[in-house]
């Protein structure tokens, strides 16, 4: 790997360090008792990961560049390989930057929501979760991917359950997710087993070559089905999303912000990777499964989950359902099986992270100041917390897809891709789902800006700390900046899609 801005010695090991630094830091974070020190440690770990991700991202910018890192010097296909191209480099950069911003926000938010003794353990679990996600996004080995998936999942169950001090339902939500997540991971490992059985390798690139040479094998098809469903569950593909609304609604605010911007995205990445690079896109069963199973579910998710969001009165649940609907948009892009569709899906993935990041962070700020989460309690917030409300509004408008926000950009490209594929009905579904989004967002915005505040609200709120205001402003600003100057993210999404397609074995 050509060093970009880091010293060559570090740059050479950047893929491994990106995962190892947070993982190793999690141990001292668990041992110290001060929550604040643990927070700083987590910031260091994630900050380092962000720098490394930027380094990797720059290194893979060249067309067709692939970073292959042999773990411990054991060469693939027998050793574990970290394999990074433009697709996962984009994911890593997204993970690092949104993770870092969310973690800044965690300082005050976690101090408020989680008891003093548990804070350092919480940050430790978070670092493990982060390392797991980074590992999933970088590894080129199917079994290793499963291991990282489990590392991140188990840590996720723990940090979701930490929301119990606000609401006991966090415990059932976490347990539900644990059961479902375990089924998903098991499905994945069964699928990987099937493929290992037929190909004799665990290295994903190697698997791809072996499958291409095989010319049809039922065991591979079954393996594909298991992997698709298992990861689909992790990605909250409708109707396997049932774990998500409660997990998002009752987890600590910071956890929701982090998960909404990263966790489902990483699962979505895994689907792309397997679908394009392990299984060839030209294979009939892959294309048909995408067309006849994933696409209808994507459309159903967009419509049903949006409607469900419309009728929620807990704001975080509302946005959780909206997230399910947004996963539908991404899956729709993937289902089109065109490079335009895939890049539109990737674009929406990035943009959705920006908007949901801003939204959940603003909700966290509201919760910190007033401890509220129901729409009815949002009355008049615009007058007492105008800046936070403005950031929230930007995120909400972006979610709807108002021009000059990133939401518009991704919907625009998605519609273009759908038209290019000749999918009129998909355009209709996107528009209908957007109209529903107008209404559910409108309910909240009206409560915030139009309805006068309650008397109790007049008392001056706790000031929004800088550690929340800065990342929130950055995310809200990103929604606007990239909504006008869309080239960087569009190029990134296109490069990612090209990399995914190019890495596949084309007969």
């Amino acid at each position: 790997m050509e060093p970009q801005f880091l010293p060559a010695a570090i740059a050479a090991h950047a893929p491994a360090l990106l995962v190892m630094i947070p993982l190793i830091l999690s141990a001292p974070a668990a041992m110290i008792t001060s929550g604040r020190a643990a927070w700083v440690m987590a910031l260091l770990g994630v900050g380092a990961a962000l720098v490394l991700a930027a380094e990797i991202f720059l290194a893979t910018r060249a067309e067709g560049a692939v970073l292959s890192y042999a773990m411990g010097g054991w060469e693939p296909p027998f050793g574990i390989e970290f394999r990074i191209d433009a697709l996962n480099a984009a994911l890593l950069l997204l993970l690092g930057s949104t993770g870092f911003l969310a973690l800044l926000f965690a300082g005050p938010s976690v101090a408020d929501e989680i008891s003093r003794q548990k804070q350092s353990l919480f940050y430790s679990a978070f670092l493990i979760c982060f390392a797991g996600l980074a590992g999933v996004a970088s590894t080129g080995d199917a079994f290793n991917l499963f291991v990282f998936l489990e590392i991140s999942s188990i840590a996720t169950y723990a940090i979701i359950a930490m929301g119990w001090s606000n609401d006991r339902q966090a415990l059932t939500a976490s347990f539900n997710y644990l059961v479902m997540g375990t089924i998903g991971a098991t499905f994945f490992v069964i699928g990987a087993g099937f493929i290992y059985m037929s190909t004799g390798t665990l290295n994903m690139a190697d698997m791809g070559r072996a499958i291409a040479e095989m010319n049809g094998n039922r065991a591979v098809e079954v393996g594909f089905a298991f992997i698709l469903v298992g990861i689909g569950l992790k990605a909250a593909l409708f109707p396997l999303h049932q774990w998500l609304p409660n997990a998002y609604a009752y987890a600590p605010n910071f956890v929701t912000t982090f998960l909404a911007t990263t966790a489902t995205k990483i699962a979505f990445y895994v689907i792309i990777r397997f679908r394009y690079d392990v299984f060839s896109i030209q294979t009939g069963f892959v294309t048909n499964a995408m067309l006849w199973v994933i696409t209808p579910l994507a459309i159903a998710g967009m419509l049903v989950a949006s409607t469900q969001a419309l009728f929620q009165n807990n704001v975080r649940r509302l946005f959780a359902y909206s997230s399910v609907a947004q996963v539908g948009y991404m899956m729709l892009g993937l289902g089109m099986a065109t490079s335009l569709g895939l890049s539109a899906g990737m674009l929406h993935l990035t943009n959705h992270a920006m908007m949901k990041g801003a939204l959940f962070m603003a909700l966290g700020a509201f919760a910190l100041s007033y401890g509220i989460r129901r729409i009815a309690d949002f009355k008049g917030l615009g007058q007492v917390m105008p800046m936070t409300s403005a950031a929230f509004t930007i995120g909400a408008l972006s979610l709807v897809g108002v021009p000059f926000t990133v939401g518009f950009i991704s919907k625009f490209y998605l519609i273009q891709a759908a038209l290019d594929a000749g999918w009129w009905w998909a355009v209709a579904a996107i528009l209908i789902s957007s109209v529903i989004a107008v209404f559910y967002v409108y309910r909240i915005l009206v409560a915030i800006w139009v309805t006068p505040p309650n008397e109790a609200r007049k008392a001056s709120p706790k000031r929004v700390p800088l550690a929340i205001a800065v990342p929130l402003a950055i995310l809200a600003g990103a929604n606007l900046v990239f909504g006008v100057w869309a080239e960087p993210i569009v190029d990134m999404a296109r490069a990612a899609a090209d990399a995914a397609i190019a890495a596949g074995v084309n007969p």
Partner: protein
Amino acid sequence: MTDLFGALHGVNPALFLILGGVLALALPWALARKAVMIAAPLLGLAAWFATREPGVYGVIELGPMTLETFRYDGLSRIWALVFLLAAFLNGIYALHERSRISDGSALIYAGAAVGAVFAGDFLTLFVYWELTALFSAPLIFAAGTPASQRAGLRYLAIQVLSGVLLLGGAAVWASQTGSWTFDAIGTDSPAGLVLLIAFGIKAAFPLLHMWMQDAYPKATGVGAVVLSAFTTKLAVYALARGFAGTEILITIGAIMAVFPILFVIVENDLRRTLAYALNNQLGFMVVGVGVGTPLGLNAAAANAFVGVFYMALMFMAMGAVMHRTGTAKVSELGGLFRSMPITGVLSIVGALALVGAPLFSGFVTKTLVLSAVSYHGDMLVYAVLVFAAAGVMELSALKVPFFAFFGKDRGYKVKEAPLNMLLAMGLAAFLCIYLGAHWQALYGLLPFAMDYQPYTADNVIGQVQILLAGAFAFALMVWLNLFPLRGDRTILDADWLYRRVGDGVVRWGGAMGVLLAGASERGLGVVIGRWTRRLFNLFSPAGSLSRIFPSGLMAIWTGVLLAAVVLVAYFSPL
């Protein structure tokens, strides 16, 4: 001076208004805001005059798309001019008002209307189209009553729906033709129909019109003036650009011109009466567009141009009356002429222009429409329009000044309207007379050159006959006590009627939008109608789809999905 004009050549006037509006939203000092409110339209006008040759300016390359943000040609320039003048008049009229939100919104709204007129492609048009929706709603909200809040939400829902339809139709259109350029569309393709509906919502086509009568009377006095100028005229422009010569528009326009007759008579609220009169005016323009000949399009443009001024003048007069007395209802007004003589005289000027009395601006434009229709050879429509001119137009025009300033004296002892209002009304009234007398100036602005003489004997005599017939009908109705004198007796609420009549997808969508907006606004407690209740039962937090599923059930789903994928894979070719 020439340097300034040189520098302004090719600068989109909309930018001045929008930037001014943003500035006004930010400025905390009323005085500075008011200066911006006056200066921004003047700068816009300067830019308009500085841009001499038709052409496409302000081209932005956005990836694969080319955005034409400033298309200055015969059709767009006249609409932009009238919008800029209207923005200037509004600035003067609103001088006494101290509201940061409505000042800024009104300017941005006007700027968006100008920008939409100059938009050369659908994407730019869509952006401005939605901006007009977003920034006109605060003018309704500003009234501050619960009724205006709800009406504003309904208004916004419908307007945003129009924008969504526009974008959807444009996307389909672009994919069929491969071009985003906004030009003649026609109704041959489904995309064209969707776009026609999108425009039709804003143009207040029959059955799509109820937002106007709903929202305008609930806006503030100033807000109604601003609202009356832009949205509907912008829609007429879009129709003229996209659907010139579409036969169905003649029928639609004729219906629009006639159907308000009942409402004009029984309506108690004078501002709502004016909203119906606006419907009738729009009908004439839509007919002109439907005829589609150069004369027809000229007629539509000329009507839009002068219509802005006399409708604004009427709404201004009503705003002044409301400002002093706090009401605009027939049953509560009367005999104001003694207290507000200047406003009274000016409103009569507006009324005369509205009915098309010779020497007033309405005359030289209304005769254009009638001529265009008669050359087109559609005698039925001609007869309908003559009836509409005598019936609807004149009844509304006579009703407003009569019941506000004459009629039964209700004993108001109020001051004359504030000076700035008088000034704005005076300017509008001046334009109404000036354009009627110097019609060559108006005709010179029209998109197509033509040789037309409005003051011919048969035109004048015909119009005077119409006027006399209308005046007679009005006198008869006053004598028969057909006008409401004792209070709200509006039995047929247009909203209610049209929501029930609702048919067609958009009607349904609009009504659902209203329902949903209502539900949103009042929270989940109020669930309107059986449909919403069913949805609610299914989707609400306590509903069957949102219940916390037992993990077992979710596991079954996983299995079902796995089976589905395996089956699909099994039956797929290798």
